[in-house]
């Protein structure tokens, strides 16, 4: 049990979108610095 959330699948429901979001943030940085068209 991690900070009160009892199931691993619950964490995946938060974790998977968070990872996709982080990938998008990295691409945002690449767009703003001109490294990605």
């Amino acid at each position, binding site marked *: 049990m991690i900070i009160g959330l009892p199931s691993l699948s619950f964490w995946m429901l938060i974790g998977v979108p968070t990872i*996709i979001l982080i990938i*998008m*943030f990295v691409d945002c940085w690449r*767009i*703003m610095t001109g490294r990605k068209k």
Partner: protein
Amino acid sequence: MSAHTLGIWIFFVYLVVIVVLGLVASRFQETEADFWVAGRRFGLGIMIIANMAAIMHGGAILSGVAFAGKFGGVAILPYISFVGGSAVIFYLFAKKLRQSGGFTIPDYMGDRFDSRGLRAWSALVVAVSSIIYLIAQLKGMAFILESLLGFDFITSLAIGTVIFVAYVTMGGLLAVVWTNVAQFLFMWVGLFILVPYVYDAVGGWTSVLQKVESVAPGWTSPTGVAWSASYMVSWYLIWFVAYSTRIELVTKMYAARDDKIARVSVPIAIGLILVFLLYGNFYLGAAARVLVWDQIASPDQAFPMLVNQLLTPALAALALTGIASAAMSTTDSLLLMSGSAIAHDLLRRCHDEPKGIQRDERHYLTISRISIVFVGVIAFICSIPDFDLILKIVSYAIAIVGSAFFFPLLVGMTSKRVSREAALVSSIGGTLVTCVWIAGSIAKAPWAGSVHPGIVGLAVAGILMLAVAMFTRPVKHDAIEKYFPEAS
């Protein structure tokens, strides 16, 4: 001063602020582009706020706390759908939409598939779905003002409609976004007041989730206390499509200063919304389930009850009025979209321009404003009777928009092969099947109950697009050049 009087004063200050913002924004309106896409002047900060306002509002707190409190874990449902939908806009739609230089989704449909029929059909879908949504939003706003400020229903409805129509008519998208900033400030003040009091009553994340699990076993599981896994997955899918085709959000891409800003604004806005949902819906929903659930008659009362129980009367009035003020920040976007579908897409692009009728920008600015007032009057009149049917249809409106636009947007942005006929048949066929399925669901027909209308409509739209594209010729190259500039 009583708490009720204080609430009314705060609401009055809010009304004055947004009308003044509308007046100031009206000074910047010279052309149709100024009105519908704010002259494409938005920088990153304002784009992030505009995107957030397209999705979240004060009503999202009230209904979100009710939903999370009642069902539990599935309230985390929007996460995957929001992020998936925003990834589609970020990677596939934003850049091409901004570079295409249009104003609306019907502009995209008409230009990309070189079809006046598709433009008119899309304008019809946008206008009808936005007006239906608008009716539900106006009714919702009137109920909130009625219950929180003590006005009667018709007075609340009239105040809300007149104010929204007034500032949108004056200032167009610029007024919408400026007032969204004001609404955000009111809403966040309301939410932040609550933080120390809720923390004091239920503790942090670990504590509140352990407590809620003990009073409602299963609350912290992904499916919550009432949903099945298959029902949950079908909703993930529907909301994913709904968010990648959310017209309020997709249309904002046209208003960015350049395509980089349009793209980058999407994930940042979604990230902030997810943080908001964790606190504003999930944490407060759990707290409401622990603290007030056995004292309320319906889940909609959860948030007001939580506030009234934890705060002093004056602070409760401040918090609730702040959130009620921001209750309907998507209403103005809906007014703007249905107005643009009538004035820009139907009158200018489908009627005047094909007939060679030349008019100046002042004329179209006036037409745009008249169309907003027209939509406002229709929505107001339709909000007065107690139409249960409209509220039922609203719950399916995302399915109609999704089946009309998802495949034409997705395939049209990624493949040059798709034909005008394929887009037309897919969009109309998918929408009609969705409408038939919705009618079946509302009439409780046995065949319609097993699967969500949006899933059926999307499946039909996808199959039709594939089948028709195989036997028809792609749109000619010069029409699609602005969407595929690398090929020229």
